[in-house]
């Protein structure tokens, strides 16, 4: 299927994605606890400015302000019925900014997690999840998004439900999961597990990868895990700009533009083709990342020691890949039939 993102990927070795949405909106006056999606309707100029911040800093692609625009999350703000509308508005504003930029910019419709648990111990049924994602997806499509982009997912069940919803609205898509627990997702998925899951999907994404999580180093370790399994796939790296600190009443991420520039080139060397930031990544970081990607030559695939030496250490000794010792270590008694 031909689409704007695939076309752009054919002509370029790397694309610069955007940075943080929440961190930027806070700086524009969003209150903690309020849903950013309301601003698509109530403060459209601020959302345009959010998008322009990325575009002016050199991003080739940005995500819409629709991360929480699903019925499950909007229910908290008594706006469960606004999922389609808020999603559509976020994409329309994005389309406007992209089309006015004078270059080819991809508007990626952000689809965030429902926040509910699926699977054996969960409460959210597959059909309900698909329905929710489809509503958001349809809104983003109606608003003119080029591609849909599910992000910050922990559970394979939820990722699959989003993929199914995207097939239902017949849109190209990308997807990233968040590896924040000793190199795995909260639900225990390793980078290798994600590759197996994604490559078995009936509707293949344009690109897939990792976002958020712990620090930039951990994210690169995850990308190395992806590219070792599937070197030919278009891979996404969207890491946080360091770790959050609380200063003078605001959340501040400690990653400098220089660090994020190093991270961006290391991400490319590790096999990522769509490179951006997540929480804490501001236009100033994006500018430094763009410049580094443009001026520094592509290097050899880094090993973990090089990543650690250049941008800092990892949150855990291993990330669970290639590890066969995950079975419970206790001596097991014979199990009863249930």
């Amino acid at each position: 299927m031909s689409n704007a993102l695939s076309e752009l990927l054919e002509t370029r070795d790397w694309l610069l994605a955007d940075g943080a949405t929440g961190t930027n909106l806070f700086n524009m006056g969003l209150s903690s606890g309020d849903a950013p999606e309301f601003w698509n309707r109530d403060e459209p100029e601020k959302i345009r400015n959010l998008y322009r911040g990325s575009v002016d800093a050199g991003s080739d692609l940005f995500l819409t302000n629709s991360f929480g625009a699903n019925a499950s999350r909007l229910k908290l703000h008594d706006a469960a019925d606004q999922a389609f509308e808020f999603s559509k508005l976020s994409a329309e504003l994005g389309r406007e900014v992209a089309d006015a930029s004078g270059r080819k910019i991809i508007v990626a419709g952000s689809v965030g997690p429902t926040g509910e648990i699926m699977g054996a111990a969960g409460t959210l049924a597959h059909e309900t999840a698909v329905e929710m994602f489809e509503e958001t997806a349809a809104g983003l499509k109606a608003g003119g998004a080029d591609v849909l982009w599910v992000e910050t997912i922990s559970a394979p069940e939820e990722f699959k439900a989003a993929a199914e919803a995207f097939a239902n609205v017949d849109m190209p898509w990308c997807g990233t999961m968040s590896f924040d627990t000793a190199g795995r997702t909260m639900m225990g998925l390793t980078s290798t597990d994600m590759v197996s899951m994604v490559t078995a999907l009936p509707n293949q994404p344009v690109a897939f990868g990792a976002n958020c999580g712990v620090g930039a180093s951990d994210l690169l370790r995850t990308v190395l895990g992806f590219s070792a399994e599937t070197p030919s796939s278009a891979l996404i790296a969207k890491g946080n700009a360091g770790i959050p600190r609380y200063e003078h009443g605001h959340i501040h991420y400690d990653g400098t533009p220089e660090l994020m520039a190093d991270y961006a080139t290391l991400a490319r060397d590790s096999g990522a083709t769509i490179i951006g930031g997540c929480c804490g990544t501001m236009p100033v970081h994006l500018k430094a990342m763009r410049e580094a990607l443009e001026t520094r030559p592509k290097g050899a695939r880094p090993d973990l020691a090089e990543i650690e030496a250049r941008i800092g250490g990892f949150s855990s000794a291993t990330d669970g890949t290639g590890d066969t010792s995950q079975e419970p270590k206790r001596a097991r008694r014979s199990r009863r039939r249930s």
Partner: protein
Amino acid sequence: MSDEEDDIILSELDDEELVQQMMDDLYDGMSEEIEEGVNILLERGWTPYKILTEPLVGGMTIVGHDFRDGILFVPEVLLSATAMKAGMAILKPLLIETGAPRMGKMVIGTVKGDIHDIGKNLVAMMMEGAGFEVVDLGINNAVDSYLEAAAREDADIIGMSALLTTTMPYMKVVIDTLVEQGKRDDYVVMVGGAPLNEEFGTAIGADAYCRDAAVAVETAKEFMQRRHNQA
């Protein structure tokens, strides 16, 4: 030995074997077997408190350690916690009847704007698994919700969780309000959530940041011990 054909009849095990088996069944998240085991021990004259502490809390401690060490992950722990809950449902009224010692009481909830309650649910379940009384306020709690519940329930601990950068600072709003109302020292305030860290917990004035549910349980036990020593 994983001979699936080899059925174990719980009632035929002696006490020590049964406790071991129940710990395994908790680990595997087998609710019906836990209920059965609890009932057998009650019939054998075990006190509800002894059943709570030995097979159940003992079993959940192993689950907690393996979760902390990255051997078990959220889906498995949720199943274990569900099995624990099934056992607790039988024991709870009996514990109250027999006046068993209280570990402490916690009100817990996700802060305003945050729907991500997986971590919070885990902490609630693991705290119950450790014998604490837990009042779960659910998601999206404003400051009044925490304060009213803590007062109403005569809680020892207030637990707050956030998973989004956009909602983390709200924890400070709650703590600041406690300070303003002169109630800060009435409660131990514990915070957690994926984007948080120790430094953040300190900066907003919490008593402790807990990296995961297992750490939350250990931290809560320590604070309760300190309180008892002071009393």
